[in-house]
């Protein structure tokens, strides 16, 4: 079995923990509880006959006064950079999260999740252009969650 470590990165309260919870347990709770440090979750899957164990690091969100400890980045094969689509500042922070991740893991892969997309209308969504590595996600209505993880996995095993 091949083990892969991935990180969920983003500013605080963008919904990283909710994405993991939706992906792993298929559940959602809209009560906000700040993550501190790191919580690990595991997911097993099979791609083309090969067994993989995905080690998902749900890392506490960065705040203006507290950045993420660099030790967490070590040995990661990929990252999902998450932003809250309704908070402009979290979208602006995405580049910084990607930059730090790729500095620590130059061969790492990155995908982007524009989370809480259930709060946008279809018309609002249509104004935002997405590339193949960027997804609208909503842990609340379970849209785009599976897709964003799957995309990252496929990127990592290519």
């Amino acid at each position, binding site marked *: 079995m091949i*083990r*892969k*470590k991935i990180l969920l990165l983003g500013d*605080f*309260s963008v919904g990283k923990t909710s994405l993991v919870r939706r992906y792993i347990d298929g559940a959602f709770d809209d009560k*906000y*509880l*700040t993550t*501190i*440090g*790191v*919580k*690990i979750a*595991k997911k097993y899957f099979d791609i083309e006959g090969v067994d993989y*164990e995905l*080690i998902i690091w749900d890392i*506490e*969100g960065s*705040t*203006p006064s*507290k950045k993420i*400890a660099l*030790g*967490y980045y*070590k*040995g*990661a*094969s990929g990252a999902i950079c998450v932003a809250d689509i309704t*908070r402009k*500042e979290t979208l602006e922070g995405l580049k910084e999260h990607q930059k730090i991740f790729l500095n620590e893991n130059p061969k790492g892969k990155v995908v982007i999740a524009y989370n809480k997309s259930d709060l946008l209308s279809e018309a609002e969504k249509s104004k935002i252009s997405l590339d193949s590595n960027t997804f609208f996600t909503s842990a609340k209505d379970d849209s785009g969650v599976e897709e964003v993880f799957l995309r990252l996995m496929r990127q990592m095993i290519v």
Partner: protein
Amino acid sequence: MKNIQAILNIVLKKDIFEYILIDKYFKIVNTSSNINKYSKEIPQMGVEIFDYLPELVGLEEEMENIFTHKEETYFLESICKEEYYVNISIDYYDENNLLILLHDITNITITSQKLLQYSNESILINNTLEKILNNQNALLFCTYENKILYSNAQFINYFCIENMIDKDVENLKIYQYMDEPCHDYDTLFEYVNKKEEYLRINNDMFIVQATSLNCSHNLFTLTKVTKLSNEIQRDLLTGAYKKTYFDSMVIKKIKQKDNFVLVVLDFDDFKVINDTYGHQVGDIVLQEFSVVVNDNIRKQDIFARWGGEEFLLLLKYQNIEDVMQQIEDLRDIIENHTFAHIKGLTVSLGVASREDNDDIHTLLQKADQALYEAKKIGKNKVVFRK
């Protein structure tokens, strides 16, 4: 040495630390007795450490390095394991083994989490409030010690301010646009706190309101009413103010004991224009005349239509000679202006200055009397009455 051992025994007894020993193949060779509490999976001897501590996946290279560089160590902080939080450190133990220490930091982490939760929620509330303020149509700003401390997006856009830290903001003295003599934000607050006031910035009219926040900060709201105010207060044909608005401004200036003159302007022989060119051209002339006057008065001057071809001006002054010169210049400009449909136009102007016992009626009477004299002495004249 005995003392250190004793301390270590106490520390270990209190379950602050647990340990795992692993070999060069990352397989578990020994653990402390309470290690089970950190995972549902019981660490079995001979099993890869990654089954028990998936947090170490990806660190294989770093762990191998510790065997060759004994002084190296690896540290992971605040890892959530079941209901506990631990710091994990990996150190050299001997030539065949690494020591993994799990330090229980649950109590301190939970306290930190509460603080972080509180702080993050505060930031979110702050962001939400800021969004609400930025979505207001009114211009909002908050002052402290007579300086603008905060303003919403509408305010920033209106005054084309890019950076609130910019020194220009400190020089943005909104109170200077007031008709009332306000010399700082505190006096502006005192003035508008009692009742709503109008404030004119360039061509826009705002209603100003003020609220005290925590006794130290003052919040000002400027609601743009230009369109509404234009509809209510402006004459539809000429765009000049209506007499009612003019009267209210005169009353206000009298109350404030401002030095000002009231001017009555009347077209000379307007009947001839109407008879010669028709009433439609007469209306166009009235409009053109209003544009000429508006273009040649100061921003703070009030220009109104009294009715027919009679207009009013309210001009504040510091020096009466200067304002009289301004009126004479205006007469001259009108006389020399080329109107589109008529050969030319002159006006007679009656001027009255506010004296201590004047009210609006006496002032209008004096100006009207002066106008009568201007007509009498040959028209196209300015006559002044104290």
